[in-house]
């Protein structure tokens, strides 16, 4: 037995215009100084890497692992970093090989962990310097 068209009609809740709750539309409060800080940070983020670290060097020593780096990222600190920290010259083959191997991994890591970008960029910069020396 069928149901005639229009005989049973699904009636939902009456449509009401959605009014914003509270006194106004949602917003994000900032001071002009706060926004200025965001603009400055954005400029640093956008600047080429060498400029970024010239203006705002990070307090990370070559070859050391900052304590806030997870253990599974520690292999990213390369042997030549440790060698440089110990005042030794890394062998040319060891210094050049990880450059090509690390670049894609660092790119992926940079996208997955934006908060590690300063450190990742530092590693890239050091890699370049070590590669140039060898």
């Amino acid at each position, binding site marked *: 037995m069928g149901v005639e068209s229009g005989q049973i009609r699904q009636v939902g809740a009456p449509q009401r215009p959605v009014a*914003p*709750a*509270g*006194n*106004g*539309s*949602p*917003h*994000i*409060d*900032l*001071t*002009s100084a706060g*926004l*200025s800080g*965001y*603009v400055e*940070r*954005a*400029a640093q*983020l*956008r600047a080429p890497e060498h400029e970024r670290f010239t203006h705002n060097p990070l307090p990370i020593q070559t070859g050391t692992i900052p304590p806030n780096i997870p253990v599974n990222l520690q292999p990213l600190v390369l042997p030549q970093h440790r060698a440089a920290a110990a005042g030794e010259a890394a062998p040319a083959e060891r210094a050049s090989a990880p450059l090509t191997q690390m670049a894609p991994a660092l790119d992926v890591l*940079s*996208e997955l962990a*934006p908060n590690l970008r300063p450190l990742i960029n530092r590693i890239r910069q050091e890699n370049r310097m070590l590669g140039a020396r060898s």
Partner: protein
Amino acid sequence: MAPNQKTQTEGTNLKTLGLNSPQEVFDILGLLKVDGEPIVKNEQDILDPRLKAKAVIDYFNEKFNVKMDELPYVASLIKHDLKHGKLTWRR
């Protein structure tokens, strides 16, 4: 075409900045109130994406001399802080 296939867009890599679309840049920045003053002063402009984008671009250009291609970086930082609770929504 495979269902999961993604297309690559040109220009600034918004995905890398954690943004989903160019409009999201203006949606985020258009929500800002600086010292109690909304960036998009005319409420009607909020409803029109073009007018909202224009208001945001004009504001950042006048106040901070920030060009349009730098705005995604500002929006990205603000979105990041919103996600991590450093900034909060208000009504």
